[in-house]
């Protein structure tokens, strides 16, 4: 009888514990922080409490890989991923899988392992390239004796995205000067007006009488692109008929679909994209301005409301939160000087460089329309992604690579020229049977950054 009672008690406790765990995992009860087995990587820490973003369905590396692909698959496809899964399902590579099962994302990007996680969430050894490419010295004399840990140095090779560093690309940009004669930016094709809408004036504003307007709100709106495009107060404040003073990201996204999609994919909006509360600077791992620490990020955080000042959104909004060394050095940087010169009318339109120029770049679509990439992370890691989308608009490739490879130069927001030289272009030229003629090589380049037991050429 006593034994039966004990069994009943254990059964009840077990069921209760399982139900509690289930409720925690599903997010229906309590704080999931207790469930996090270890700190997540910089890329995922904001969403680590949205367990099912990665663990759905729960269990197994295949399920995790599917989750990785859900968020990162399109980006990898666009990058012409150099090491897609299909390479490692090839029977020819079966023997290599024993060393590293590269069919799985999680073989190289293990989460909840802070002590073993490197930049970009990589959790394999720095010299992992040698597993398959240890004979590269036979193919490229310039690479003989190189430390395999240096393969992924800035300006060299990346595991997934090599669009800016493959040999022919390097060769085609050889000899470019540090500063290119920048062409005027292509005129943007305005967003097509919604059929049936006509430009509005302050007299047309349809805010209910019960809404108290601040003096500037009406005039700001009346001068905005929204009024010009026929978007009335209710278009943002009552998109489904019920008025709300606050305008949600989803309300903006009803028209700005692409911008919203980019924003929820980046660090500013990924929490909102997964149904979590908005990101606050206080939760960031990078240094932020104390005064902004409790602000909740939404479209208005950067764009304000009613006036939608894109110029402010390109610099002031960024610096209102970001307080890392690179951001704090912006105002004294050559990029900022160029922007001030442009705004003062002393330099051509489009010659200035704001924070957004590099981190939220304009993208020209096949239709000619130019939109802003609102995923601030889209070209940030690895930094070579920025070469094509931004740097090469103004700078020669060699100078741009050298700059991105110079940590001190990045810290001071490129206030000083790069103090080192990455020999990628030199080596590509030598392999193609051409003489290096890049400015850095001609004018006594600084010491190379590559560790090699043989001369670079």
């Amino acid at each position, binding site marked *: 009888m006593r034994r039966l009672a004990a069994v009943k008690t254990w059964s009840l406790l077990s069921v209760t514990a399982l139900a509690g765990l289930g409720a925690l995992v599903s997010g229906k009860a309590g704080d999931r922080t207790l469930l996090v087995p270890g700190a997540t990587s910089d890329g995922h820490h904001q969403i680590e409490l949205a367990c099912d973003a990665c663990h759905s369905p729960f269990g197994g590396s295949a399920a995790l890989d599917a989750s990785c692909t859900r968020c990162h698959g399109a980006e990898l496809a666009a990058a012409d991923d150099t090491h897609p*899964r*299909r390479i490692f*399902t*090839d*029977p*020819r590579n*079966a*023997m290599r899988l024993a060393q590293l099962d590269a069919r799985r994302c999680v073989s190289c990007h293990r989460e909840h392992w802070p002590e073993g996680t490197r930049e970009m969430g990589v959790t394999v050894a720095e010299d992992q390239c040698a597993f398959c490419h240890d004979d590269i010295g036979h*193919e490229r004399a310039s690479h003989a004796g190189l430390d395999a840990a240096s393969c992924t140095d800035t300006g060299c090779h990346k595991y997934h995205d090599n669009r800016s560093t493959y040999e022919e690309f390097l060769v085609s940009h050889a000899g470019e000067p540090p500063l290119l004669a920048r062409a005027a930016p292509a005129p943007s094709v305005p967003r097509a007006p919604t059929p049936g809408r006509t430009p509005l004036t302050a007299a047309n504003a349809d805010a209910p009488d019960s809404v108290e307007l601040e003096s500037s709100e009406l005039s700001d709106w009346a001068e905005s692109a929204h009024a010009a495009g026929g978007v009335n107060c209710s278009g943002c404040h009552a998109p489904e008929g019920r008025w709300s003073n606050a305008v949600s990201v989803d309300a903006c996204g009803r028209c700005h679909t692409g911008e919203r999609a980019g924003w929820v994919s980046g660090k500013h909006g990924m929490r909102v994209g997964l149904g979590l509360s908005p990101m606050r600077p206080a939760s960031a791992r990078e240094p932020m301005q104390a005064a902004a620490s409790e602000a909740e990020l939404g479209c208005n955080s950067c764009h304000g409301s009613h006036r939608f000042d894109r110029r402010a959104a390109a610099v002031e909004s960024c610096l209102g939160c970001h307080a890392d060394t690179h951001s704090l050095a912006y105002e004294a940087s050559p990029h900022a000087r160029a922007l001030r010169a442009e705004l003062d009318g002393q330099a051509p339109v489009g010659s200035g460089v704001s924070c957004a120029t590099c981190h939220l770049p304009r993208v020209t679509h096949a239709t000619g329309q130019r939109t802003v990439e609102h995923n601030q992370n889209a070209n940030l890691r690895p930094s070579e992604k920025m070469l094509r989308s931004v740097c090469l608009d103004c700078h020669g490739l060699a100078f741009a690579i050298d700059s991105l490879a110079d940590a001190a130069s990045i810290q001071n927001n490129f206030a000083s020229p790069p103090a080192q030289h990455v020999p990628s272009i030199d080596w590509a030229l030598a*392999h193609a049977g051409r003489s290096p003629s890049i400015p850095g090589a001609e004018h006594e380049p600084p010491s190379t950054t590559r560790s090699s037991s043989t001369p670079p050429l």
Partner: protein
Amino acid sequence: MLLPTALALASLVACKSASSSPAGGVSPQQLADAVHAVLESDRAVYTREVVNRLQNELGVIKASEHWKEDKALPLPAQMFRMGADLTAQKEAGVHYALLSQWPISRQNLPRTDVEKGGLAFVVENPTQNYYGSERLGDTNYFTAVYPDKAIAPACVQCHNQHASSPRHDFALGDVMGGVVIRLAQ
């Protein structure tokens, strides 16, 4: 192409001999030969009717190794590899590759014993194919190697001039490498 491949693969379960036909089915060798016939034909059509016609005869568009960058046509060998990649993604039990003893990319060197033996054989015997079996990882494969000859001046020209090519004396008609087809068993 994949439907008959899948049907034939199903018939391989009871197949004991590579070249003899099981009752009501096809042998691995027959299947590999059939797959090769399709691949070879598709590649010839693409080379002749797309690349050669549009680039050389009409001058409408060029073919380029960096076809995306150059907004050009993929080279026939690249088209072949893209098909191989897509087939590999389907994980349907058939893999094929274009390998060579003198590849532009060292990743396309023969790696397994069957690949090494097969490529050496077809170079020495340009009119014959090579068949073998091998165990890679935890799977057995029937592997066939077919000679891949320089059928157009462009093949020879590109390989002889390419900075990454280890051989620069190919002539028209030479065996430049081999098509390797693998069937999971």
